[in-house]
């Protein structure tokens, strides 16, 4: 890992420092929001939101490169598309009833299709693959400041409204009966999920970012019995995967996004397998994930 640490202090390759900082800062939001996503079982909604980002990125690049709108940053397009998808997905989830999965699937693929069409009309040199699977070279100082702002917004709101989100995620109907605007909070949670996804799109890519949102939280869920500790652990698992993934990919010239996601996946599988093994070796002790009643 020595060359990775050397690269971090090299003035001529600042993107490594930016990518590391974006990863570490983004992990905080991923730990918090990922825990809500996994606990509320809305990973597939987050998947639809993340994939629709390509439409926003493509549109922003098209407006900037073809129509000369210099202020149209791809991250702005990503944020707008992610928020629009979050609202649409949320409305579908709340009101589409049995057709919820069809509507969400449509948002998932339409967002990608729109993005690919915009990329086809861009001048040469713009490759959607770098957005789909991540490309740390693309991380700039400007991205870092955007990530700092989004991170503060996401974590601040999630902490400030924690009790409301907890009530809505655990029992939406009861929260509504206690006078909480549960549908509004649900949509807000999806919007926070959208902003969180945007944070690490540059590092791990649109396709793989959903894994980083869910795997560390699912791993943390194997240990934690309350939402707060689960968020903390999920953030640490996410941060570890990002830092180690960046280092390993740099050392061995591997693509960064897949390396990070494979590390997160390997830790999750190891923890689940360890839990099952412990249950098998010590009869009567069930792994947490079995959901078995322990107290008579």
């Amino acid at each position, binding site marked *: 890992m020595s060359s990775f640490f050397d690269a971090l202090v090299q003035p001529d390759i600042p993107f490594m420092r930016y990518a590391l900082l974006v990863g570490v800062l983004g992990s905080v939001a991923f730990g918090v929001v990922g825990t809500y996503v996994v*606990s509320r*079982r809305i990973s597939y909604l987050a998947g639809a939101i993340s994939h629709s980002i390509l439409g926003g990125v493509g549109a922003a690049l098209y407006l900037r490169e073809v129509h000369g709108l210099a202020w149209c940053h791809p991250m702005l397009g990503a944020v707008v598309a992610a928020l629009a998808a979050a609202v649409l997905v949320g409305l579908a989830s709340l009101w589409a009833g049995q057709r919820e999965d069809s509507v969400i699937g449509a948002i998932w693929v339409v967002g990608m299709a729109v993005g690919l069409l915009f990329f086809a009309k861009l001048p040469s040199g713009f490759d959607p693959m770098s957005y789909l699977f991540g490309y740390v070279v693309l991380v700039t100082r400007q991205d870092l400041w955007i990530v700092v702002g989004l991170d503060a917004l996401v974590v601040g709101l999630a*902490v*400030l*409204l*924690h*009790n*409301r989100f*907890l*009530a809505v*995620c*655990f*029992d939406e*109907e*009861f*929260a*509504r*009966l*206690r*006078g*909480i605007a549960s549908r509004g909070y649900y949509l807000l949670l999806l919007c926070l999920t959208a902003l969180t996804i945007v944070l690490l799109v540059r590092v791990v890519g649109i396709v793989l970012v959903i894994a980083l949102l869910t795997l560390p939280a699912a791993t943390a*869920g194997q240990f*934690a*019995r*309350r*939402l707060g500790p*689960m968020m903390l652990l999920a953030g640490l698992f996410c941060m570890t995967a990002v830092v180690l993934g960046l280092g390993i990919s740099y050392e061995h010239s591997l693509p960064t996004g897949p390396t990070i996601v494979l590390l997160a996946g390997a830790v999750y599988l190891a923890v689940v397998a360890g839990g099952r093994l412990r249950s098998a070796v010590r009869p009567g002790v069930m792994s*947490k*994930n079995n*959901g078995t*009643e*322990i*107290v*008579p």
Partner: protein
Amino acid sequence: MTSSSAISVRDVNFSYGGVPVLEGVSFDVAVGEIVSVVGPNGGGKTTLLKLLLGLLRPASGRIRVLGQSPEQARLRVGYMPQHSLHDLQFPVSVMDVVLMGRLGCRGAGRLPSWYSAEDRRAARAALEQVEMVSFARRSFAELSGGQRQRVLLARALCSQPELLLLDEPTANVDTVAETRLADVLRQLGRSKTILMVSHDLGFVTNLVEKVICVNRQVVVHPTSEISGESIHDLYGHEMRMVRHDQHLCTGGDGHE
């Protein structure tokens, strides 16, 4: 509706997509009464409960809860849903679940992220009422069905409601848990109006004063008048008679 009515339902009709579920339903529940709503599956019990909670609106007719519309009365009502409807993997402690009952209480939890000391005192008191205070720090997922049901009852009690609405309080709980729950409800019945939806006729006949039989329409009986004949009329077929150690009752579907 009389001034002493906790619940007043008048000529209520409700249908799902043109299929009538409740027709011409009228009944009253007096303040301080313990009543049960019984009836076959699909008879409209849950729909009636949702109408009383203001989660559904009747096509016609009038519902008053504690002298207000169901929506206006929500914060004065404690609601206990079935424990089996909750995600058993959800990482939440017993205390966190009970504290949710403080949401919407005046002066409580003003900051959205923190519950006040008053909220925590109320939650502990509610847990003491259902004899679950020693479980406050435990994970909700680790509890048995009966314990979870009592925690949800504590959540309903946490806001000190005037009326308790309980949905199948004995569903998926064993007989020991059922007995403990009955003891708790008997205690609560001294100070609160309670309406419970139940399949378990053995449980309710020993606990309530009045039974509201729902099968699209409603017939109200004092508990003492519940007989094999009235049950046959309600369910449309013969029911099993189950002899318990202490009393004889008529068993409903699945009641052993």
